């Protein structure tokens, strides 16, 4: 067994050891924003000053710039994009920039790579950090030359005294700059947009992905690849029904498997389930394979508990039934009932099943318990949640848990829930060695925090011109809040504010309701969360209304949006609107931007030029989510056997200011594929409380031929603040696809996945 990879994992991450003693280190806080200079010797002082640095930017005397990324890389490009921002403002030469991955540490502020908010939250502070460094370097040079600062300029790693042409490299200035006081925020001069050299400039540029070479040559270290000395492997047999417990265990045969050393019982979670492990029996061995083999030989009898009768077919009927009845009102504008008393009434029910994340890399974690402390190496979206969860599971202090963040082989929300790390820590404590817990694909599919199943009911009234006069949307789903409250029956403002109470249509009478549903599996967030079911039903229904009114769907959606304005949802019947955690001043809800992406999508896709029908069709949908505005147009072909092909998709994105356009395009291409998969084949179902799927043979995700063949992504030029990009592509894609299938076949698919529908 080699330990060659230890370095790969541990070399990064240690802020303290990262810089040489003479390095110039700059740290900045996320909110409130300020920066201070610091040399490494008194760095501890800065930390002790109760300031919470979110970013460290350091310059070595040899000119190397270190930028610490405090967010996790799971495929969005964030490990490259955040440093680009600071490097640009610093006027650093990209070839001299080294990227370091932060460990979990509350001093970074929020490190949860979730909610499409890394750039939203870090754009300004990273710019200010870079600008502060640039100013300090300029001042250091001016002082050395004894010339006014205003005669000097910093460009591409060099400060120049313009009148004399004297030059000093950044490296030469590092020590002097580190001794200067940090400029006040008011002194910083951020670069003008036209001066940006990296921000917004990555098309066809290899800097788009910092880890490229490591990835293509197999050297990139994902969590699955990490190793530490003396490590053993574990595979866990978990209760097949959520909340189940071990009744009896016979591990004799398992212990006879060559390489297996012992078994370890993991206690069941105490409700609510939170991020606790599910419990079960771990088989510990000297290789992954031996652990898998030993596990197969375990004889476990389970006490399955209350969820053992849970059945997805029955549950689905219940959700759809509940959705027909009045629920808790989460938006009430005008008088829907009065509107429904006249005109043409259209009604429809929709259904989206449970979905699994199925990240390409299954959950995996290494933990080492030693002297009352835990060190962990994890592909995690949220290293601070790892610290909290492990600390709680072992009864130790949060500060006694160190979490190193590896690359993630996909995240999609799964890897912000660190149950798998607590498992590794518990086993390590029991065996006294570092332990790597490897989830199989079956474990991943059967023991996920699933995206919620949902039943929706829609009703609308149309006047004689086909204009919508009343709109009712009822949604029933097991809420993510069941994670922290096992009695939870209703959703909360986050779920409501994803396509239910933030419906942007300019309809005078609107009501949104949420009916009760109990969770029988662990529910969690998956890329774009409740938007998946709310926007699917809402924008499918809008398409139905267009057809009922005999209108073109795209024009009709524009008409539903109205002339366009800044919405004040709280004045329009929404009790509390969460706006993705942002203030409405900074991130207003502007339906003009929705109109614009739709109009561009019409143009780019040649909407309306070719007549739909006979197995060919185009569908469209538009949505604002994570403060970004996205329109999707999907073109489908459905053959005589009902087989669907997606030759072309168009995504038009207004995500405000875009830092790494190349990676933004890739996020939307990927969202199209994920959206297509959700619509085509995505379904987790349970019988007798047990998940029926287990691997890619029965939980199918798109392969090359089922995926959209070509997705064209158009980014709208914008000076607005940056919005999210990881998630917002998924919500409009699913209904655009369903609407395209309707256009091609005349079949309205109201229940996902399509694979269950008869299209011909």
């Amino acid at each position, binding site marked *: 067994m080699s330990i060659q990879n230890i370095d790969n994992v541990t070399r990064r991450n240690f802020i303290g050891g990262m810089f040489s003693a003479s390095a110039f280190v700059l740290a900045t806080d996320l909110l409130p924003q300020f920066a201070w200079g610091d040399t490494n010797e008194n760095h501890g002082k800065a930390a002790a000053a109760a300031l919470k640095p979110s970013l460290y930017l350091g310059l070595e005397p040899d000119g190397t710039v270190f930028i610490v990324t405090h967010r996790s890389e799971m495929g969005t490009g964030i490990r490259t994009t955040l440093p680009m921002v600071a490097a640009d403002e610093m006027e650093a030469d990209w070839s001299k920039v080294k990227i370091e991955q932060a460990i979990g540490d509350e001093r970074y502020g929020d490190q949860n790579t979730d909610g499409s908010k890394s750039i939203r939250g870090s754009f300004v502070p990273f710019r200010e950090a870079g600008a502060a460094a640039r100013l300090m370097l300029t001042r250091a040079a001016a002082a050395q030359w004894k010339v006014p600062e205003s005669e000097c300029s910093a460009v591409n790693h060099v400060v120049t005294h313009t009148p004399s042409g004297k030059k000093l490299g950044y490296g030469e200035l590092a020590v002097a700059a580190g001794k200067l006081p940090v400029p006040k925020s008011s002194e910083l001069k951020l670069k003008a947009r036209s001066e940006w050299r990296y921000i917004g400039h990555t098309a066809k540029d290899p800097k788009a992905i910092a880890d490229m070479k490591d990835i*293509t040559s197999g050297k990139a*270290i994902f969590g699955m690849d990490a190793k530490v000395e003396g490590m053993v492997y574990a595979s866990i047999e978990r209760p097949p029904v959520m909340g189940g417990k071990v009744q009896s265990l016979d591990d004799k045969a398992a212990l006879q498997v060559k390489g297996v050393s012992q078994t370890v019982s993991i206690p069941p979670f105490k409700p609510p389930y939170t991020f606790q492990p599910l419990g079960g029996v771990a088989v510990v061995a000297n290789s992954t394979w031996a652990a898998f083999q030993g596990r197969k030989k375990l004889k476990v009898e389970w006490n399955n508990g209350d969820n053992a009768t849970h059945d997805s077919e029955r549950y689905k009927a219940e959700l759809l039934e509940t959705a027909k009845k009045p629920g808790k009102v989460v938006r009430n504008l005008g008088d829907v009932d009065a509107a429904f008393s006249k005109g043409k009434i259209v009604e429809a029910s929709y259904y989206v099943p449970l979905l699994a994340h199925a990240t*390409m890399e299954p959950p995996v974690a290494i933990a080492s318990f030693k002297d009352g402390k835990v060190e962990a190496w994890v592909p995690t979206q949220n290293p601070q949640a790892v610290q909290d969860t492990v600390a709680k599971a072992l009864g130790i202090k949060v500060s006694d848990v160190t979490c190193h963040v590896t690359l993630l082989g996909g995240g999609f929300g799964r890897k912000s829930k660190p149950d798998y790390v607590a498992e590794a820590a518990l086993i390590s404590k029991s065996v006294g060695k570092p332990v790597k817990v490897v989830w199989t694909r079956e474990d991943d599919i059967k023991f996920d925090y699933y995206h919620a199943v949902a039943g929706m009911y829609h009703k609308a009234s149309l006047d004689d011109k086909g204009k919508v006069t009343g709109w009712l949307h009822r949604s029933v789903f097991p809420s993510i809040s069941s994670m922290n409250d096992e009695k939870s029956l209703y959703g909360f403002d986050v779920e409501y504010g994803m396509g239910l109470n933030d419906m942007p249509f300019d309809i005078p009478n609107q009501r949104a309701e949420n009916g009760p549903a109990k969770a029988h599996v662990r529910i969690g967030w998956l890329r774009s969360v409740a938007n998946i079911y709310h926007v699917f039903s809402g924008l499918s229904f809008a398409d139905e209304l267009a057809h009922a009114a005999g209108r073109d769907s795209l024009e009709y959606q524009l008409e539903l949006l109205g002339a366009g304005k800044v919405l004040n949802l709280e004045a329009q019947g929404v009790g509390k609107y969460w706006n993705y955690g942002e203030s409405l001043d900074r991130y207003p809800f502007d339906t003009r931007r929705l109109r614009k992406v739709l109009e561009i999508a019409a143009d780019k896709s040649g909407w309306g030029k070719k007549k739909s029908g006979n197995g060919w069709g185009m569908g469209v949908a538009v949505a604002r989510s994570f403060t970004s505005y996205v329109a999707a147009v999907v073109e489908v072909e459905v053959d005589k056997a009902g087989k669907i092909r997606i030759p072309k998709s168009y995504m038009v994105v207004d995500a405000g200011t875009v830092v790494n356009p190349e990676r933004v395009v890739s996020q939307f291409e*990927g969202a199209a*594929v994920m959206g297509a998969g959700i619509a085509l084949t995505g379904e987790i179902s349970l019988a007798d409380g047990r998940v029926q799927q287990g*691997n890619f043979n029965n939980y199918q995700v798109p392969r*090359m031929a089922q995926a959209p063949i070509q997705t064209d992504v158009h980014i709208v030029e914008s000076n607005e603040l940056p919005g999210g990009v990881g998630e917002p592509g998924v919500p409009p894609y699913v209904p655009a696809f369903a609407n395209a299938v309707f256009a091609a076949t005349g079949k309205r698919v109201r229940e996902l996945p399509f694979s269950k529908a008869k299209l011909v």
Partner: protein
Amino acid sequence: MIKLKVNGRERSFDGDPDMPLLWYLRDELSMTGTKFGCGIGQCGACTVHRNGEAIRSCSTSMKELAGKTVVTIEGLSPTGDHPLQKAWAQGNVPQCGYCQTGQIMQAAVLLKKIKKPSDKEIEDGMAGNICRCGTYQRIRAAIKTAAKEMA
């Protein structure tokens, strides 16, 4: 004792002959470029070459490797500059990157067999490789780019 050649080096193995090659590569040789994605031959993340053919190392046991030559991503090109690897970089193919070594290994065999594959031939050749991040259109384009360079 099973003797085999991995990336040009002679190796001998005397463990469980039923153990899949994947775990030998990853756990014993620390060649972690070959990935575990499904364990049942469904995803292609574990693709390597055996005597020049693309195989799923998760579903190929050590006893099926006696006297065989195995090439992994680590051995595809000593400098990491195989035309496919260059095309991957040029097209900015990866997102998370986890599936990509398997994709490249599969594509390498595809291009050995078909010099200028059509869209359909690429789809068929790559049908066993899942990319959950959804980089398929770039994979398709990069294969075409590499095919051109190799021609």
